[in-house]
């Protein structure tokens, strides 16, 4: 057992972790944050994407013990049901969510990209989400939603 301290969505946790535990399982099973999804287990679908110190990461490839002293953002930290993040609002408004399974990872990838590049071209948007697979929407509305969210965020409109 290894003791770690990790911040998830601005909450600090002290956890005892076995080395072989994956971050995605700790987030889902221990912290009960089930917004982060398990898709492929091999880092190819992006459903498990979380932000670690602002960088998008496949949590299915990340040993939880490495999260010591890190700052993690899951989809639950992006917005609240009564106060959605502009990215979430834009996804809903643009029908960019169908089954919803890819959405948490997709939105966090979008956030990471927009944090770094607030005025992306369409190509840059596509590159930003290129690690997230969606089987439902065909991506067109996702890209539109991100474009719209980028504009809202640039204008500094409050969430």
């Amino acid at each position, binding site marked *: 057992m290894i003791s770690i301290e990790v911040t998830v969505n601005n909450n600090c946790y002290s956890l005892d972790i076995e080395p072989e535990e994956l971050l995605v399982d700790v987030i889902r099973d221990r912290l009960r944050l089930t917004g982060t999804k398990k898709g492929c287990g091999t880092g190819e679908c992006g459903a498990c994407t979380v932000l670690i110190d602002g960088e998008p990461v496949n949590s299915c490839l990340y040993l939880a013990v490495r999260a010591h002293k890190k700052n993690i953002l899951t989809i639950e930290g992006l917005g609240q049901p009564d106060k959605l993040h502009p990215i979430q609002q834009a996804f809903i408004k643009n029908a960019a969510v169908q089954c919803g399974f890819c959405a948490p990872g997709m939105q966090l990838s979008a956030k990471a990209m927009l944090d770094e590049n607030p005025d992306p071209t369409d190509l840059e948007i596509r*590159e930003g989400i290129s690690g997230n697979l969606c089987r439902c929407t065909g991506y067109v509305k996702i890209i539109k939603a991100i474009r719209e969210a980028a504009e809202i965020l640039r204008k500094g409109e409050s969430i």
Partner: protein
Amino acid sequence: MLEEFGYVCPNTIEEAFSAMSKARPGQALLLAGGTDLIPELRSKEKKADCLIDLSKLNLNGIKCMNDKVIIGAVTTFRKLARDPIIRNELPILSDCANQIGAVQTRSLATIGGNLCTAAPSADSATLLMCLDAVLRLVSPTQERLVPVEDFFVGPRKTVLQDMEILTEIIVPLVQNRKTNFKKIGRRKTVCLSLINCAAALRIDEKGIIEEARVALGALAPTPMRAMEAEKLLVGKNPSLELFEEAGKIAMNEIKPTTSYRASAEYKRLLTEAVVKRTLEDSLSQFKPLAGKG
């Protein structure tokens, strides 16, 4: 769920060696990004008594000195793609880094890990071969420098010995070197290379090719140089016809296998075309990708 293993995160390379020596031979596996290792542990392709996390060994710096760029082995592709030294001095490496895996895997995957996993399709290997990169391998008793092209001995097999750690990738900076890298796959991201190709040409003041490198990946048991194609190019004026011929020669140097991805015959035809195009594009003005990776 993964099977049980021990875990250490040493602060110095000596601590790492100590942990390696305490394990049974081959049972202490080095953990860099984990993007290859974790799936391998999950599928039970690999087993370990203990993982040794390299992230605190300060092997993730990039510096430029004495006409060489020195890259720490545990540098992520995300960092490599964005680093100002790489973008200024070796923009082709930034471009290559941006084509590996996906945004999320690049936050974890490291250049050293890519080389040490030693898949025949390893993207950074092909390019580093063209750049005449040299690898620093460190053990408790010695350090040795191994050219990238001598590092691979078979599919997923390298010359790394039991107690050795790859610490640095050293890339010499060369004047008038024009390079290009192409990765061909079924998708633009999140895919293993069906084939990849890197080319480097050094052109003299008269416009003649002084030196040539053509390297290919996923077309033989290891990443390889197309030496006959290279010999053809040296001493000649660059031209479309010359590059076409180089493609034809390279096509006969490779040892492709037929897999579910593509037949050997298709890979040969692909090689002919991709070698030609990579050589052509190495001459055109190169700009790093707009995106940061």
